[in-house]
């Protein structure tokens, strides 16, 4: 084989063994255990004895039980279990026996000795009791493994299910942490909905229980399913106190028909495996109490107690971090103190930095996560003469050494630079207005907020919005109206300039008024020629603009055709014809026109213009 490839295989195998935790050279731990499923059995029935050898995959030959007078045994068969959990390989080999009592009495299965792989292991002795059928009522309907009907002996409830309360120590200091364990032991019963235990301990503070663990344990030869709850407790005051009992609430699953017929005692004869599939269960609540423990709580010694001791008991470690350590005056430093230990973190007061002439300190933010308490605090150096973040210390009482111990942290060397002059405007109006701007002197500066405003400014009603005010609405309306008016005026102006007919129509009344005024003046002065010239000019100008006709077309001979379609009355048209004829005549023979005739002419023209204006206004 290629040596290089062989080396790679060796490395791989070694690496695999390292990862899986399988060590070929490691010595196996072998143990031997004997247990029975119950310790009381009725005559004519049997109990199961299991002999388990852990750490082996099998035995060369079965274990032979010693002959016991009045007790017959039969080997049911072997069982082998192999498991790899988290890389840990384990195996066990079991032999299951049925034991049949042949008489009433007490039998003792002696301690068994076994030699496996050059190791000698020994089991614990087991005592069992065989009773007559009259002494033990048989639970009807219960069936055993293998189909043979047999009864299950009623045992005391406290032997089948019970709670054990344990404290890691029975002699502790005030506020010292100790472990509390509550174990629920169950043998051959279907127990459900197990709640967290309740412990009566007024003089103690109890943490919340951790997630429970489940495992099997053999007690006095009987195998139990165990549910274990763990937590921590702290004593609140010195003295001798009861601790417990612990109460455990759960529900027992029993078959419905049995529970109804046999009452409370019936379900103890139930078989755990019988009702695994689809039977009708009734859940009955059950509360079990443990025994009470007696604990002695000692006071903390006064001797050697430091002044700033806050009451923390246990072993603690204080760690401190501060950053940045190179900064300018007024810049914040974040300090982070981490206190870890096995004491009561709720009462352990983590040290804080207090404000002084060197630092401005803000309130710390403290968080507790399990056995770690973290304090984050912002401190700000006030001047460049600050050379270090001061050291802090934490005092605690160590119950193992019975002494007060100090955990120091820091100091942290600082390099605080003074503020540069150009940076000053960043803090406009601050208390640092009294700065010395001389570069030759050391600045004594701090970063702070700017000062308050002297004047309140304009007060508004709360929630005031300018756009909702009347003034705003008025201005907006004026702008929109002005815009609209300006646009319309522009369009009008453009039309006047570009639309001659439109402009003429607009000018016609003006010319008419002006002409009539001139004619009235000539009429007043009795100037016949001037009057009729004015009348003629007015007619020419008015009708030229109003009817958009050339000047030459306005004459006595064609004026009638100009009014066709307008709807002017016939007498008005006739009067206009006559008026134009008079105008021509007056130029050459003005003597024949007297004042009355002039006035009639004037009135005719005024009436004709009025009527034409009305008609045209309607028309246009």
């Amino acid at each position: 084989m290629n040596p290089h490839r062989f080396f790679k295989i060796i490395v791989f195998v070694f690496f695999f063994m390292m990862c899986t935790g399988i060590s070929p050279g490691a010595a196996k731990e072998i143990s031997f255990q004997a247990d029975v499923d119950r310790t009381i059995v009725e005559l004519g029935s049997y109990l199961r004895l299991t002999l388990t050898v852990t750490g082996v995959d099998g035995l060369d030959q079965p274990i032979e039980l010693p002959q016991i007078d009045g007790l017959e045994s039969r080997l049911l068969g072997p069982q082998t279990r192999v498991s790899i959990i988290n890389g840990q390989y384990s195996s066990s080999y079991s032999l299951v026996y049925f034991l049949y009592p042949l008489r009433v009495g007490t039998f003792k299965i002696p301690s068994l000795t076994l030699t496996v792989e050059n190791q000698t292991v020994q089991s614990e002795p087991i005592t069992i009791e065989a009773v007559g059928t009259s002494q033990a009522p048989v639970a009807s309907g219960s069936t055993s493994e293998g189909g043979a009907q047999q009864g299950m002996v009623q045992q005391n409830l406290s032997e089948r299910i019970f709670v054990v309360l344990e404290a890691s120590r029975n002699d502790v200091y005030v506020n010292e942490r100790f472990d509390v364990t509550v174990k629920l032991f169950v043998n051959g019963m279907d127990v459900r909905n197990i709640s967290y235990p309740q412990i009566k301990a007024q003089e103690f503070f109890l943490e919340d229980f951790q997630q429970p663990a489940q495992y099997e344990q053999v007690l006095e030869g009987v195998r139990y399913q165990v549910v274990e709850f763990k937590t921590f407790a702290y004593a609140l005051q010195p003295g001798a106190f009861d601790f417990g009992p612990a109460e455990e609430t759960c529900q027992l699953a029993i078959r419905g028909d049995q529970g109804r017929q046999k009452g409370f005692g019936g379900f103890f004869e139930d078989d755990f495996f019988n009702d695994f599939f689809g039977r009708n269960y009734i859940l009955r609540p059950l509360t079990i109490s443990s025994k009470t423990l007696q604990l002695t709580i000692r006071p903390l010694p006064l001797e050697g107690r430091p002044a700033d001791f806050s009451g923390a008991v246990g072993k603690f470690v204080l760690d401190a971090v501060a950053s940045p350590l190179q900064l300018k005056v007024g810049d914040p430093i974040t300090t982070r103190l981490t206190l870890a230990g096995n004491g009561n973190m709720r009462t352990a007061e983590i040290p804080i930095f207090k404000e002084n002439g060197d630092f401005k300190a803000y309130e710390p933010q403290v968080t507790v996560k399990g056995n770690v308490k973290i304090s984050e605090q912002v401190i700000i150096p006030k001047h460049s003469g600050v050379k270090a973040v001061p050291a802090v210390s934490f005092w605690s009482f160590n119950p193992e050494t019975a002494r007060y111990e100090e955990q120091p942290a820091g100091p942290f060397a600082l390099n605080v630079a003074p503020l540069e002059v150009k940076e000053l405007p960043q803090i406009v109006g601050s208390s640092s207005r009294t700065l010395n701007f001389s570069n030759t002197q050391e600045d004594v500066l701090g970063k702070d907020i700017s000062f308050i405003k002297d004047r309140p400014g304009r007060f508004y009603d709360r929630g005031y919005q300018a756009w909702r005010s009347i003034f705003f609405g008025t201005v907006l309306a004026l702008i929109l109206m002005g815009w609209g008016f300006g646009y319309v005026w522009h369009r009008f102006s453009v039309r006047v300039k570009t639309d001659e007919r439109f402009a003429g129509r607009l000018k016609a009344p003006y010319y008419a008024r002006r002409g009539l005024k001139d004619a009235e003046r000539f009429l007043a002065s009795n100037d016949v020629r001037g009057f009729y010239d004015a009348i003629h000019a007015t007619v020419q100008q008015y009708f030229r603009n109003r009817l958009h006709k050339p000047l030459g077309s306005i004459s006595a001979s064609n004026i009638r055709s100009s009014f066709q379609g307008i709807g002017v009355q016939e007498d008005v048209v006739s009067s206009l014809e006559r008026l134009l004829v008079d105008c021509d005549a007056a130029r050459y023979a003005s003597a024949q026109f007297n004042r009355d005739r002039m006035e009639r002419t004037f009135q005719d023209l005024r009436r004709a213009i009025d009527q034409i204006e009305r008609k045209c206004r309607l028309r246009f």
Partner: protein
Amino acid sequence: MSKTIVISLIFYLIFAGKVFAEEPSAVFAKANTEYQQGRYEEAGGLYEQILESGQESGALYYNLGNSYFKKGQIGKAILNYERALDFFPRDADLQANYAFARSITRGLDERGTVFARFAKRGALLLARNEYAWVALFLLGVLAGVHLMSLSFNWRRNLQTVVIMVGLLALIFHGFFWVLHERFFARRAIVLKDSSVLFEPREGATAHFQVYEGDPVEVLKIQDSWGKVARFDGKEGWITTDHFERLRRGKTNQ
């Protein structure tokens, strides 16, 4: 006659002081005096008294923010600085104090997306009422320029360009105005450290942590719970007593 004068004088002495003391300006001046003498608690109380009377101003919120800052209540200080931004967002003192207060909070820096940063800058360009008056001014200018273009007979293309530019200016201004209103209507400041939960109930799973002074956007109020969003888009629920909205008058409930 003299009797009437004496009675009038007595009434004046009894009631004049009270009337004047309740004038917001007088209370403001008194609060400033308290502040200058280092009695921040009393100063803050007087500033709050003006607010409770239904009056508000930018300087009032600014000074109140200073009082809270001096008392170490960073969350309240930032809340009032941001309220003052609604009145004079370009004030140098206010910007400096606000930035300083934000810098010493424990929360994350408010980063957000490019649009979010743009929106915040746009929202804080002008004060609340400035947006209204500038909009009116722009409308007036647009109308004037339009009429002028007609009057002086500008070329058609030039008229179109002028009108389009004016309209775009109005639209952009309106957009920023909406951003401003949205910013102040939805924004709230966290007043005490809290875990933001996935569900509005006690014991629900914590989603993220907010700290005193952190800004959040209030999306919804349900009973005593508020659904808030952080600048990075994370959303969750906290009780309404853990934050306060910027716009006074809108209660948390």
